[in-house]
């Protein structure tokens, strides 16, 4: 170990902040409903995201019921199946993952972890949540609209997205696009806050290179989202124009049911470029906060400083930059110039380098660590394994030649669920177990947590591992039923198995929700720092932290976030705001 032969650190007089700068809630409504406190907004974001995520979970059960037992459920028609697929995908990617990582964890953790009292623009931050809620409500409204929600697939590719043969091509697609536009407006308000708060709101001593990796992940992801979401915005606005105002941005001359439509000269490929120019960075908008959070969970629960902190930061920034030049690897089969495919395959494989660095560093952090198999740690380890898994199949699909035969098979579904579905969800769950004590002051039940982890983790593997095999067999994705195709007969029993497991895993999530509610009242008192963590959010004077986070004085930061297992320290760790190690002997 490195001996702490550091010079004596000067004690710095704490920074007092004038009270008037803070907005104080005056009534119950402004405290809990129209609150400008980032922590309340975070909880509002998280609960809304989880509620709509639950809808998406139920939709996945319905899809699985159809795939596992085709013909048994008469209420699932081909049209509604496509609607389930579309809404499941869109809700999970945008309204759950993006909103929960940035709106939920971003709001809760950024001010606390960098030693700020709140976001820099609290009012705009509040608006951000309410616009997000409106976007969710518009989305939900499409379930009740005539014709139901859109069934265009979550990528909403024109021309089929707005042609009359697609379910929900009346109200559904209009509400979907409007909801996306609202979401992006709301996110931009929040995103400005996250970026400016990290840039301007850091307390004294909190240099960029002392920020916990969680903040680096959220910060970089937010910058990416601010630059990438406009692409979805442009695509959605133009598609909405095509649908409502009769323009032909994306609509080529087309014959529908023997009739020439009054469309001419649009380019469907243009939409794909716009969509994936947003869509690929989106993968990392979800992954980078997960990377950051997992780094902190592993370091805390293995009582080891993070291995290669600098490299971790550089890798986050490098992944963020590279992710903007790989989008067309989603379009190998779109008929674009094959030389493009060559270029994009190369950039895609390059992005594996910084990602692999991160994985090695997590493993080296664990190496000879004092690993505590707490529930958050289990989820973090589950993430690393799952992510490696999903990443490796990504190397397959990143190569244009391998991708072409696998495209539109279940292999792709398995790949992106592993890497962008299961992996980030494991981090979200781990992070909830980790920070719940700070948010509520009580611990989540450990036994229920372990049950939840094992069922979710093993279940996810039981669901998605066989799915790779289905894909190699040639089972196509997006099919309502496989029918009598001889070569696919073997897939039926496997599909039924996957469905049963999916229902079980869904049940485990109900146990988790029960745990969330039950522990709120009956959980063990957590104290202010149950995990003995170094970062600032665990050093607040109150648990849960009050509005304004800190008492009269802002904390002053003396060290980085990973001083664990420090020899000679009174406890085995040094909080970031502790001036110098207290030596016992």
């Amino acid at each position, binding site marked *: 170990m490195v001996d702490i032969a550091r010079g004596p650190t*000067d004690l710095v007089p704490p920074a007092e902040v004038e009270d008037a700068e803070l907005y104080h809630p005056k009534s119950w409504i402004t405290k809990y409903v129209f609150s400008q406190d980032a922590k309340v907004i975070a909880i509002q974001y998280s609960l809304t995201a989880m509620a709509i995520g639950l809808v998406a979970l139920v939709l996945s059960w319905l899809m699985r019921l159809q795939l596992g037992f085709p013909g048994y459920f008469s209420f699932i028609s081909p049209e509604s199946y496509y609607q389930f697929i579309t809404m499941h995908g869109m809700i999970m990617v945008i309204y759950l993952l993006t909103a929960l990582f940035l709106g939920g964890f971003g709001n809760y953790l950024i001010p606390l972890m960098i030693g700020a009292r709140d976001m820099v623009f609290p009012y705009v931050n509040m608006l951000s949540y309410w616009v997000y809620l409106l976007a969710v409500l518009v989305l939900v409204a499409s379930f009740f609209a005539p014709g139901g929600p859109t069934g265009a697939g979550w990528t909403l590719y024109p021309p089929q997205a707005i042609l009359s043969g697609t379910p929900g091509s009346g109200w559904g697609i209009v509400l979907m696009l409007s909801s996306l536009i609202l979401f992006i407006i709301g996110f931009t308000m929040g995103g400005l806050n996250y970026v400016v708060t990290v840039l301007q709101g850091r307390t004294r*001593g909190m*240099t960029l290179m002392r920020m916990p990796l969680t903040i680096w992940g959220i910060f970089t992801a937010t910058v990416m989202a601010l630059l990438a979401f406009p692409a979805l915005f*442009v695509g959605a606005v133009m598609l909405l124009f095509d649908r409502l105002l009769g323009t032909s941005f994306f609509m080529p001359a087309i014959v529908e049911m023997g009739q020439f439509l009054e469309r001419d000269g649009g*380019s469907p490929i*243009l939409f794909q470029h716009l969509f994936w120019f947003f869509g690929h960075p989106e993968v990392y908008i979800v992954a980078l906060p997960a990377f950051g959070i997992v780094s902190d969970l592993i370091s805390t629960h293995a009582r080891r400083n993070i291995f290669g*902190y600098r490299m971790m930061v550089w890798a986050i920034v490098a992944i963020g930059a590279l992710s903007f030049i790989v989008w067309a690897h989603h379009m190998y089969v779109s008929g674009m110039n094959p030389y493009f495919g060559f270029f994009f395959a190369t950039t895609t494989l390059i992005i594996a380098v910084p990602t692999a660095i991160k994985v090695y560093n997590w493993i080296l952090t664990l190496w000879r660590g004092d690993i505590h198999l707490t529930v958050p740690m289990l989820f973090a380890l589950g993430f690393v394994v799952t992510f490696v898994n999903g990443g490796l199949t990504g190397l397959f699909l990143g190569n244009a030649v391998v991708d072409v035969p696998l495209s539109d098979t279940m292999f792709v579904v398995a790949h992106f669920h592993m890497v962008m579905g299961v992996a980030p969800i494991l981090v979200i769950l781990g992070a909830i177990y980790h920070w719940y004590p700070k948010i509520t002051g009580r611990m989540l039940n450990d036994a229920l947590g372990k049950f939840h982890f094992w069922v979710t983790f093993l279940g996810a593997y039981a669901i998605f591992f066989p799915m790779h095999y289905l894909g190699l067999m040639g089972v196509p994705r997006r099919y309502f039923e496989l029918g009598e195709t001889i070569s696919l007969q073997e897939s039926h029993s496997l599909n039924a198995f996957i469905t049963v497991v999916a229902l079980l895993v869904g049940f485990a999530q109900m146990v988790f929700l029960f745990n969330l509610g039950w522990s709120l009242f009956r959980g063990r008192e957590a104290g202010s720092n149950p995990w003995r963590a170094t970062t600032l959010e665990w050093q607040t004077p109150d648990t849960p932290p009050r509005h304004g986070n800190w008492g009269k004085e802002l904390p002053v930061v*003396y060290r980085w976030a990973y001083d664990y297992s420090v020899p000679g320290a009174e406890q085995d760790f040094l909080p970031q705001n502790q001036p110098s190690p207290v030596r016992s002997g």
Partner: protein
Amino acid sequence: MAVTIIFLAVVGSVIAWWLSRQRLTSKPWLEEGAGEPPAGPGSGGPIPAAKLGLWVFLAVVGSLFALFISAYSMRMHMGDWRPLSLPDLLWVNTGLLIFSSFALHRAVLAARREDGGNLEAALLAGTVSAAGFLIGQILAWRQMAAGGVFLASSPAASFFYLITAVHGLHLAGGLVALTRAGIRVARGGGTERTRLSVELCAVYWHFLLLVWVVLFALLLLTRGGTH
């Protein structure tokens, strides 16, 4: 997507330049201590948070317009593109917007000198000319429509209406902020807060002027002959 990539490269180099000054090669595990006290009052840096927030927002808006331009140029290079002829009124509108931006520049100078009279006059001139620009844009649309060119007439027309509408909406949003700043000045300005809001409006105006000049140049370069 070349335009967008170039735009992002510019944003990326600003970020890279900024990152290069953040001691990313330091070894935080060896360093201890609270460092230098922050420069300004409060814990913020030298730039006011609102100003930084505006610049980040401009990066987002810039990204939006870069994507529109990318989409436009990708579509334009397809075989069946029919170019559009533009109304001459757009030149007048451009002049109005330049004047508006110039007026706001004067307003910032006046605010710095705490010259209340000139500040109000400049803000008024800026507001009126910007409103004039918006009215002029609507008149230009009407001229196009009178010539038989509607939103759905051709891809070029669709792009023209869409891009000018998005630009106009951004300016209209700016007008709300500018009016609020004007009211604040009229109620007896001269404070730090008013000066900042006038400056922010001016930055936003110059940016929207730049966007318009780029858009207008693009439209001019790709227009067809007069009818």
